[in-house]
């Protein structure tokens, strides 16, 4: 982050107003960024981090097994509603399982799938985007037409057919999200590469005899990481919701293993008698997706001025 802002400084000095007008602008801008957008990104990241920490702590500390059925304590309301009840913080479901434990075990899976999918999509998309942007020509045409094709295909339909075809397990789910997520990364990285490829220091490296792989890896990629991170956080929010939707439709990870989506699905028919079964996984999803989006927004406004200069 420090590098990004100091880079903006130098550019500000260069264009338009030299002298101190540029300098003042720079200070004002960096200060403003850290004050507002930086805070936003930091807040979002903190929320996400808290959810991740809890996903590890709560199932470990909970006295209840995530799959421990106890038919005598079915559909207990949350702790603060029935103080004489069984002291289950988030209540229990139709089989008497502890919701709190299940929600955070579910968080593990939902986050694992989402992070895995985003990482995979980022990897595939970055490699293809770099190749398309830097090599250009036919490689570019083929990759970008594939991107267009991919984006033209209804995502839900694609996911449904793939899952129906190869079965809904963890690895397959990640695969599906990689398949639907990579075009966004490819586009962003390609755009950055196109701009960076024209940079004098890239030309200088070519003049020194640096090969394509070295230029892409050492010169283009590090300078394209900013926008890439932004896309990744937005993508994370998208995949979180998408994964829950699939689970909700029982096309994701199958019960009894909990995910936010399938807990909600189980609670759907009980909404009138036991709202808490649906509510807690739902609110966690909202928190997580919102936190990811906030992080993305924050990062975006930090990275963006620099993008414009490029």
């Amino acid at each position, binding site marked *: 982050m420090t*590098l990004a802002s*100091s*880079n903006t*400084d*130098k550019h500000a000095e*260069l264009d338009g107003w030299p002298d101190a007008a540029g300098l003042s602008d720079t200070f004002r801008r960096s200060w403003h960024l850290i004050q507002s957008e930086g805070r936003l990104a930091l807040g979002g990241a903190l929320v996400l981090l808290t959810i991740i920490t809890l996903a590890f702590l709560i199932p470990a500390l909970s006295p209840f097994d995530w799959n421990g059925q106890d038919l005598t304590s079915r559909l207990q309301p949350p702790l603060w509603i029935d103080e004489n009840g069984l002291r289950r913080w988030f209540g229990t479901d139709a089989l008497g399982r502890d919701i709190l434990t299940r929600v955070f075990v579910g968080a593990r899976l939902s986050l694992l799938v989402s992070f895995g999918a985003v990482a995979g999509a980022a990897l595939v998309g970055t490699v293809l985007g770099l190749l398309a942007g830097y090599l250009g020509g036919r490689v570019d045409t083929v990759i970008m037409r594939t991107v267009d094709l991919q984006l033209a295909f209804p995502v839900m339909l694609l996911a449904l057919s793939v899952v129906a075809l190869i079965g809904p397990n963890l690895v397959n789910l990640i695969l599906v999200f990689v398949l639907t997520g990579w075009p966004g990364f490819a586009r962003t990285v390609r755009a950055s590469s196109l701009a960076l490829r024209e*940079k*004098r*220091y890239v*030309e*200088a*490296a*070519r*003049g*020194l*005899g*640096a*090969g394509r792989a*070295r230029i892409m890896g050492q*010169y283009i990629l*590090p*300078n394209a990481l900013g926008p890439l991170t932004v896309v990744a956080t937005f993508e994370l929010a998208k995949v979180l919701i998408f994964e829950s939707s699939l689970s909700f439709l029982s096309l994701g990870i199958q019960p009894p293993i909990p995910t936010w989506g399938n807990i909600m699905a189980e609670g759907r028919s009980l909404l009138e008698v036991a709202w808490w079964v649906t509510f807690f996984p739902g609110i966690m999803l909202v928190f997580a997706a919102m936190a990811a989006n906030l992080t993305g927004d924050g990062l975006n406004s930090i990275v963006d001025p620099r993008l414009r200069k490029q």
Partner: protein
Amino acid sequence: MTRAILAAHDLRKKFAPRTSFLGHGQETIRAVDGVSFTVGEGQTLGLVGESGCGKSTTARMVMRLLDPTSGSIEFQGADITSTRGKALRSLRSDIQMVFQDPYESLNPRRQVKEILAEPFRIHRRPTDHRMRSRILDLLDLVGLLPQHLGRYPFEFSGGQRQRIGIARALALDPKLLVLDEPVSALDVSVQAQILNLLIGLQKDLGLSYLLIAHDLAVVKHISHRVAVMYLGRIVENSESHQLFDQPRHPYTKALMSSVPDPTVFKSSVSQRIRLEGDPPSPADPPDGCHFHTRCWLATEQCAAVSPALVGDTKDETRKVACHFPL
């Protein structure tokens, strides 16, 4: 005359704008349109002209960063127009480039020592401690200090950055440096330091320079020979002193007369030659002599027939492409 280290023969570069889906292309741009020149060993050839004249494209072709559409480039007697792979890589160490904007040509995320180590890494040259001592030598050569090694480009002033750029270019012991507007982004007081550095390096290391510049005074100051370009063609090519003492092409004369001289004041400034209008677009250059649309001496012949770049009858080295040289 000295032996030529670099020779370009009838270089051409056309840029075809991407044709659209239905195949309607725009006109091709003839950025470089038949350019020939030589750079003498240990000498400087100044390639001068206004923006869009093709001088930077020519430099990039010499650097093999762009492939010419036609024509050939000879380096030390060998044709390098289509050198590829390993041979190109070793050629890279012989021909190096110094860029205009030292703010842009250094990777902002690398420290000076990494920037200077890069050429050695790419060419897998000496071992680590030999590389270190070589880098220190380079710093010394360009007037920087060892404590600068750990700093990032943005911590330097423009002049110092250009010194880093020059050190990087010198790392592999090149024989020819292509200098692309090496001082035009620098302050006046710093320009002179860099020009003197370049002159000193040429003397000490026996370097040859191909200098690309728009500033005639800079070109005059360090060039042995000068070629003036206009719309993709060389219009005049002579020994520096001859060209500046007695320009033979009207464009050269007009260009010289346009340079604001600090010893010419408001009262006498009106006596200079003024060119009307803008240079025509390289996508649609005029027929005949490219300069005839702005030339005060143009005749029908100039509009119809393109003059060849030929040597003077008395002095073969003094070349001009004009039907009516001055």
